[in-house]
């Protein structure tokens, strides 16, 4: 079992839970898409795995080890987590090359250099712009850099928060192609929060739909793709009964 979230209640302000008893299991080497309307707690779910929000109840385990009390910076290497937030996902004043080096800050010098070279070879667009400031990149380049930075430590688990937000249709297509390729190449589990349901589920094994801090639907990706309620939920609706084709949250 890769990532286990057990009945967590979490939020930013005491007494105002954003996640209300969420339980999710993300299997090894799978791609899981988390869908849901704005404010449903999708980003908070990723932040609670990384340790950026307070968890008041429940626990998070990565590869069987509890990480709930582990500080965020320790989770990266000790528990092999890579995280790409939705906004501010690069170090703007630093160059592309420096962003990658920062991603490998905890690696040895030789490992860091080798991995930086490897990723720059894999993403030639980043290599072309390796001396440019990250805040001068286009949206697609920036997203590519953010993901490459997170891959520096060869994480076994990659958490992506709305990676397609603000990208052009061509860049979105390229991005989802990149996710499938990363899973194969890096042998990594990917938990991706998305608004772009169709394209994300198309490359995923499983999908979850969150509504007001709870998992409303949980099922395999093809089933969810065909589920009428997925699109209804996207418009802010709430499922009225236990899903027939998909199961309730784990």
């Amino acid at each position: 079992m890769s990532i286990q979230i057990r009945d967590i209640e979490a939020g930013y302000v005491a007494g105002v839970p954003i996640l209300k008893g969420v339980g999710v299991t993300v299997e090894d080497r799978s791609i899981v898409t988390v869908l849901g309307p704005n404010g449903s707690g999708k980003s908070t779910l990723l932040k609670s795995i990384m340790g950026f929000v307070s968890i008041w109840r429940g626990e998070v385990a990565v590869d069987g080890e509890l990480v709930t009390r582990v500080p965020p910076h320790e989770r990266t290497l000790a528990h092999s987590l890579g995280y790409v937030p939705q906004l501010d996902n690069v170090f703007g004043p630093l160059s592309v090359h420096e962003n990658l080096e920062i991603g490998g800050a905890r690696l040895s010098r030789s490992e860091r250099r080798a991995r930086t070279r490897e990723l720059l070879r894999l993403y030639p667009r980043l290599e072309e712009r390796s001396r440019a400031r990250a805040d001068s990149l286009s949206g697609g380049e920036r997203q590519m850099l953010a993901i490459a930075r997170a891959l520096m430590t060869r994480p076994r688990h990659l958490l992506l928060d709305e990676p397609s937000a603000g990208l052009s249709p061509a860049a979105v297509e390229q991005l989802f192609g990149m996710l499938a390729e990363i899973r194969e190449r890096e042998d990594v589990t990917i938990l991706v929060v998305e608004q772009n349901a169709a394209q994300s589920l198309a490359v995923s094994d499983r999908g979850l739909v969150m509504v007001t801090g709870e998992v409303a639907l949980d099922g395999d990706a093809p089933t969810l793709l065909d589920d009428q309620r997925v699109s209804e939920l996207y418009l802010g609706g709430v499922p009225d009964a236990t899903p027939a084709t998909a199961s309730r949250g784990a």
Partner: protein
Amino acid sequence: MGQVIVDSLVRGSELALLAVGLTLVFGVLRFANIAQVEFATLGAYGMVLVASVAGVGILLQALIAIVAVGLLAVAVYRVVFVRLLRSSAAMAMIGSLALSILVRAVIQTVTGPDPKELDLPLERGVDIGGALVTPTQLRLVAISAVALAVLIAVLRLTPLGRSIRAVSANPELAAAAGINRKRITDVTWFIAGALGALAGVLLAMDTQVSLDMGFGLLLPVFAAALLGGLGSVGGAVAAAYLLALVENLVLKINFGSLVGGDGFVPVDYRAAVGFVMLVVVLLYRPQGLFGREARRA
């Protein structure tokens, strides 16, 4: 003009060391530490204290004072500012003003109100292109330049420096990249304290040691950090020298034709130059002369 340039280099060197400390701490914590200038006072008095209790050479006196103030800065951050920052940056800034007053009160209680002088040999000034400059001032400019160059090299070229810049740019993302923000913040406070103490030591060698030597620099130091774009080390250095140059030019200009009689600006009003400059620049470039406007994806 030569004298203006020399005076500006000396003044700019003092301001730059303090402004860089201020901007570094602001970068990682988003809080402007008013007590930054007191690190200069502590550095100067620390050197006097070391000289009085230990028979060591002046270099060692300076080094001990600088390291001690750097460590004190880390302790003050952990004991005082960690708690205040949990409340808000504004609370921490007010707390830093209180700390600034407290530092001077404690020093006055321990050493008395009278200025002190370091026991240094008198040196004859030298003429450089028509400008009179003392060897101490030459050393001040050179040491400051070397310290700032080393700092910028560390920030640009080393993993530690990149980590400081990363935390400054985006603390949460830095943590996600495995950087220990607490450790980086401690290191940043040490650097800020040590740079402030170095400024105090150099000032003490050039002039004298007094209770208000740091507080007197508060306005120009803040002006330099803001003009440079808070958080920008290179900007703070450039702005410090630019501010010093403008201050010295204004002091040399006779405004008599405008106001009648002797129209020189009194030297006591020198700090006002920075303030006027700051207001004018911020009206047109709120991000400072060398700062970049925030851009988001």
